[in-house]
């Protein structure tokens, strides 16, 4: 049930829309970049054999 926002409907819905859009954007960008870097690292590790580690696993 949608609350009665009366004459402030545009204000309240606008504020929530901006917030949810910005949150969705930062989450999507962060996840996409994480997946891209993980994929590239897996490719390079497969090529060099992953023998020379500097301590951190690529996973």
């Amino acid at each position: 049930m949608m609350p009665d926002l009366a004459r402030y409907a545009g204000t309240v819905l606008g504020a929530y829309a901006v917030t949810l859009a910005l949150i969705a954007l930062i989450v999507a960008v962060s996840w996409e970049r994480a997946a891209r870097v993980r994929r590239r690292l897996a490719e390079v590790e497969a090529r060099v054999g992953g023998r020379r580690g500097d301590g951190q696993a690529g996973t």
Partner: protein
Amino acid sequence: MSLWRYSNPAEFMRLTTPALPVLWALTGLLLGGGLAWGFFLTPDDYQQGATVKILFIHVPAALMAINAWLMMLVASLVWFIRRHHVSALAARAAAPVGATMTLIALATGAIWGQPMWGTWWAWDPRLTSFFVLFLFYLGYIALWEAVDEPDKAADLTAIVCLVGSVFALLSRYAVFFWSQGLHQGPSLSLDARENVSDVFWWPLVVCMAGFVLLFVSLVLVRTRTEIRLRRLRALEALEARG
């Protein structure tokens, strides 16, 4: 168990792998639940009407905008003192999240201000210090991108972080000592007479917890990406050398 073991990239990756799904689940639960509670189940305010519902996004975003910078300050100090790369990478990872929170606080504040104050913007102490904080976030992110040598970039951005901390603190405390602005004083207080009504307070607490968890989850994801990127560059350099 020493706190410094987390500064080992392998240990950091090992510990955060099982933690992340739990953190994301809690983030969804608290953020979704808190926002739904605030939006659908709270009454109008006697003065502000339905615009009081903006409280549940504006206040947690502003809280995280300031605290993200303070987290970056702590991480930068750890980098300066102990030279742990994970702390520098965590500070770098937090900056875009903090900038997003600052932008949310500025945008929702402007949208809220228009019907309440009759203007989208005023050069009020708190608004101005928040705007300068946003510019510091952009400058900090740009500096990381502009400097090729990672340790030098970490040093320079740590200095920017130290300077910007003045504005992070100013944006929090400006209303206390600089009282000529439009922005109201703090709505949240340990004194029950000064605090917002319970009907707004409890959903706000849930929303604040949700925003904190969102920040932590995003920073962990982004820090793990920075660690992987560092290893990727090291391996690519190794490969290039043959």
